[in-house]
């Protein structure tokens, strides 16, 4: 019968084999699925990515060159003005005895492509390694956290948003500083969950969830979203916390790439967040004058973010 099927009905044979392969892939454990994806990306897709990168570098360079020359001239003037302001800022800081903050820069990038899948989860940016956008950089908007760079070529980068299963974020509840991990849950209703929060902890709907800064990829204090629902897991040990994202991912066209350790950077003033709630258990800012004098703190906690402003 099998021989009959193989030779007389090759279309059915191909169909059955293909379906079985698909079902096997679906039933694989997540780790194994990630290994398969990694293997395919580094074997089947690698030549295509290499060719695309080569075309992108070769064809795009002439068109890009003229545009960049103009941009460099404009930016140089801005940099000169900012250097003067930075010097003045440093002098004033010394006068006020304020501590120096870790430097960072934000690189603006346009969303040039979106996930092919209906559920979304990834973006392509029009900036790459040559613009300082490398793997594991945090991606933000003034509204909050978008995700992280998965990989980058010379002028493009692929971003895993927080709505992707491979993008987990160390997070905390701003009001009570309860820590957990934000992860997109692919279940009955795809939602963002704050995981590993004990049933004893104080978390309520409406609480603001921000990054905790642990893990080293995402800077501390960036808004992720607000708690939508809180329930107990069936085992009664952990809380089941559903979080609504601060960023509207459907209308996302421009993002900011966080590049820590870049002294030339400036933060746009619209990244300023509101004050934390009065009953916050967060440690108070070391100096209230410092908080008001620094116009670039990202996040909503009262504690200053680890990387906030250019010195």
């Amino acid at each position, binding site marked *: 019968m099998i021989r009959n099927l193989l030779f007389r009905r*090759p279309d059915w044979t191909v169909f059955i084999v293909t*379906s079985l*392969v*698909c079902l096997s892939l679906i039933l694989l454990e997540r780790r194994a699925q990630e290994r398969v994806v990694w293997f395919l990306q580094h074997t089947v897709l690698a030549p295509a990515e290499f060719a695309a990168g080569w075309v992108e570098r070769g064809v795009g360079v002439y068109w890009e060159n003229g545009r960049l020359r103009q941009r460099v001239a404009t930016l140089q003037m801005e940099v000169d003005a900012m250097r003067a302001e930075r010097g003045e800022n440093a002098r004033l800081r010394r006068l006020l005895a304020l501590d120096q903050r870790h430097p960072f820069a934000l690189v603006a990038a346009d969303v040039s*492509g979106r996930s092919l899948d*209906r559920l979304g989860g990834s973006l392509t940016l029009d900036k790459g390694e040559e613009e300082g956008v490398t793997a594991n950089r945090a991606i933000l908007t003034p509204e909050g956290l978008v995700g992280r760079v998965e990989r980058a070529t010379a002028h493009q980068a692929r971003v895993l948003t927080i709505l992707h299963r491979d993008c987990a974020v160390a997070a905390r509840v701003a009001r009570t500083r309860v820590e957990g991990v934000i992860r997109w849950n692919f279940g009955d209703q795809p939602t963002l969950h704050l995981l590993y929060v004990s049933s004893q902890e104080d978390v309520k709907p409406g609480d603001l969830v921000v990054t905790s800064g642990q893990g080293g990829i995402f800077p501390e204090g960036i808004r992720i979203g607000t708690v939508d629902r809180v329930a107990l897991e069936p085992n009664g040990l952990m809380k089941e916390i559903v979080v609504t994202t601060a960023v509207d991912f*459907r209308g996302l066209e421009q993002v900011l790439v966080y590049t820590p350790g870049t002294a030339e950077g400036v933060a746009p003033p619209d990244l300023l967040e509101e004050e934390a709630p009065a009953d916050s258990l967060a440690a108070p800012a070391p100096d209230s004058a410092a908080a008001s004098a620094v116009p670039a703190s990202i996040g909503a906690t009262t504690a200053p973010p680890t990387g906030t402003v250019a010195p």
Partner: protein
Amino acid sequence: MKLIRDSMVLLVVLSLQATLLYRIEIGGIRPDLLVAFVVYFGWMRGPIPGTLGGFGVGLLQDMDASGPLGMNALAKSVVGFLVARAGFRVHRSNVGVRFAFFFAALLVHDILYYAVATGGDGGEFVKQMFVKALPTALYTAVATLLLLGVAERFTRRRLLTDET
């Protein structure tokens, strides 16, 4: 020649799906041109290329997806195969037949897709079928017919013909 033409069509569809289609999103619903490509491919090239093409396109989509690996590959393989089997003796140049085929194929695709995506939750599955699948199928069928019309006028030849 057919291979080159199909590769070109796939390249255009991939580019459109990744870049421009979100701009014509209506209420969170946007056309799924990759399914439409699988329908076109299966319809024109037969069951084996249809199944394998659906598998390849689906796997490519799965590598970029948040859901389980193989979900798109399974749905598109089945669509590629079924369209090729069912569409063997119909008039592909007829607009009504085209619409019916694209619409039905999209629904079959989404039944499989959401059956896996909802993990067996019947209520959620029905909800997704009404809220997402039906509007997407309708929107995709209309958008595909429009695109096909433009492409056929532009190239002055029928992309979906009764010839094989």
